[in-house]
């Protein structure tokens, strides 16, 4: 296989006396969708925050394209091509789609010594990119608040792709969405993957993960329980691993196998 876009080896993260991560490894290849599964409190959030430069790891290595990197902050990670789309915080609802899309990287036009946002370019590119992702905007000045949850996720993903993300981290993009919107987001993930971008898809929903994942890594209590390729593992096995096995088996018995 090719060199992974990003590889994390034995990442540990301690917050004071709490060990949030106790040795997590994961790699992402170009064009791959790597699903990171785990129950609440398994350390998924801490892990992706380490990946996106919010936290510095206490121990372990981060390699990009084979050489070790250290992120001083989120800006570093973004510049290195790691884009993160957070579940609730992807967009600012009161602002227009264009303003959100270009946030932090506004295209500028010069008027003598003054620099203004080039709204003509910004609006045009936004409309084009939205169309590619299958979102029909009434106008680029439409507030993000008028979009559905799935559309907001898609705008955030389109933004990350447009600005040259190599690795796209999606933090539970489907957990708050309805059925139709979920399938839209999953379809978007598939489009992004086909462009050669490595996707890290965080979820606790095995069905959503199975729908798009190429590889699956399960986290439990701050540790990697293992990585499996598509076809090597059944949804039931993944579910078991996420919940830590036995307890769920008991629960499942009493609930008639519906969990």
């Amino acid at each position, binding site marked *: 296989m090719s060199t992974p876009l990003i590889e994390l080896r034995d990442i540990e993260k301690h917050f004071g006396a709490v060990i949030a991560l106790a040795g997590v490894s994961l790699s992402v290849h170009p064009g791959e969708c790597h699903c990171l599964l785990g129950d609440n409190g398994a350390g998924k959030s801490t892990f992706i925050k380490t990946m996106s430069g919010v936290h510095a790891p206490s121990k372990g290595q981060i390699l990009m394209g084979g050489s070790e990197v250290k992120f001083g902050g989120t800006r570093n990670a973004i510049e290195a091509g790691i884009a993160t789309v957070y579940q609730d915080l992807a967009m600012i609802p009161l602002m227009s789609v264009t303003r959100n899309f270009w946030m932090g990287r506004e295209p500028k036009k010069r008027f003598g010594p003054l620099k203004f946002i080039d709204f003509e370019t910004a609006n045009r590119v936004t409309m084009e990119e939205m169309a590619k992702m299958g979102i029909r905007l*009434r106008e680029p000045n439409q507030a993000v608040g008028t979009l559905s949850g799935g559309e907001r996720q898609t705008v955030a993903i389109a933004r990350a792709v447009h600005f040259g993300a190599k690795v796209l981290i999606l933090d539970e993009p489907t957990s708050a969405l309805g059925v139709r919107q979920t399938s839209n987001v999953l379809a978007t993930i598939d489009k992004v993957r086909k462009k050669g971008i490595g996707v890290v898809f965080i979820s606790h929903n095995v069905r959503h993960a199975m729908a798009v994942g190429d590889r699956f890594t399960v986290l439990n209590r701050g540790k990697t329980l293992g990585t499996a390729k598509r076809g090597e593992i059944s949804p039931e096995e993944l579910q078991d691993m996420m919940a830590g096995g036995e307890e769920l088996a008991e629960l499942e018995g009493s609930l008639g196998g519906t969990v």
Partner: protein
Amino acid sequence: MTATKAEPDPSPAPQPGAPEKDERVKEISGFRKAMIRPELGSICGTILVFVFFLLVARDSGMFSAEGVLNWGVVSAQFAIIAAGACLLMIAGEFDLSVGSMIGFSGIVIALMSVTWDFPMWVAIITAFIVAIAIGWLNGYLVIRTGLPSFIVTLAFLYILRGLTIFAAIATTNKTIIGGIRDKAEGDWLAALFGGTILKDLFVWLADLGLIGKFVAGSRAGQPIVDGVPMLIVWALILIVFAHVLLTRTQFGNWIYASGGDAQAARYTGVPVDRVKILMFMFTAFCATVFATCQVMEFGSAAADRGLLKEFEAIISVVIGGALLTGGYGSVIGAALGALIFGVVQQGLFFAGVESSLFRVFLGGILLLAVILNTYIRRIITGER
């Protein structure tokens, strides 16, 4: 849209991947589109207020050159502090220390120039530096402590007012320091804050008979209104500057984002803390512009100047359509809010109405504006 057969179809085959028209997205009517502008309320308010006073007080001289100058100056005063308060509020913070800052800056200028005999320009520059430093401190404390700016700046409302009165009494034994006009005479920087421009234009207008002339006294033959006061010039400059900054620049985009959702803004790499602190400094700058103009106009500084100005600034901004929660608003709206304020305050006087009713009006219009803003917010965010 009606299709004309003669013209070729502007969009031939739909691009691959182009979305189909979503049947559930209603075409929005032009009226509704006009509704979701932050300035809407203040535009309507301005029209209403002018119509009202044109009907009630047209013969009172309210709309003569003198009358216009009268309410123009008052409106400009509100507009100067509203410009700063507006950007700060859109960035998601309040500054309740604006009024105290006005008193404080005025006393700094008076102490430096009159009591300690520095040149006027040194006094003015010192006042600006000290005020902007306090603005920075306000912002720094808000960011560092994570406390609501409401509380931090409320503390400074008292701290600054107390220090101002103390400093005035301790050095001069008075709370009003006069003699500034003599010191300001011929000073290059003082001229930017006091006095008027376009004097020749007004003499010419008076010669044409468009403006009245003094008929007696030492100024007989000169126009009653001798020019545009620098206060109004400053108000216009600050409004245009703040409006362009907010709507046309990258920094403006960051102001909206910082107030709209600070955490989301941080994730996209917006330096939220820096934006907010700079806005506190800009508010302090505006307060000092107000103070300097006022000191030059009155020829004195008083420790109790600027009382309640922080609330008047906030009310102007809210009438202008800004949300109290930040992330949404308009400088033009805030300026119109200030205009409504000035026209009504002075207009009641021209109309011969008891001036205490002004406050009743203020409370009423504030309530109306907030209700309208909440409604507009629901429309734009699609909340139910």
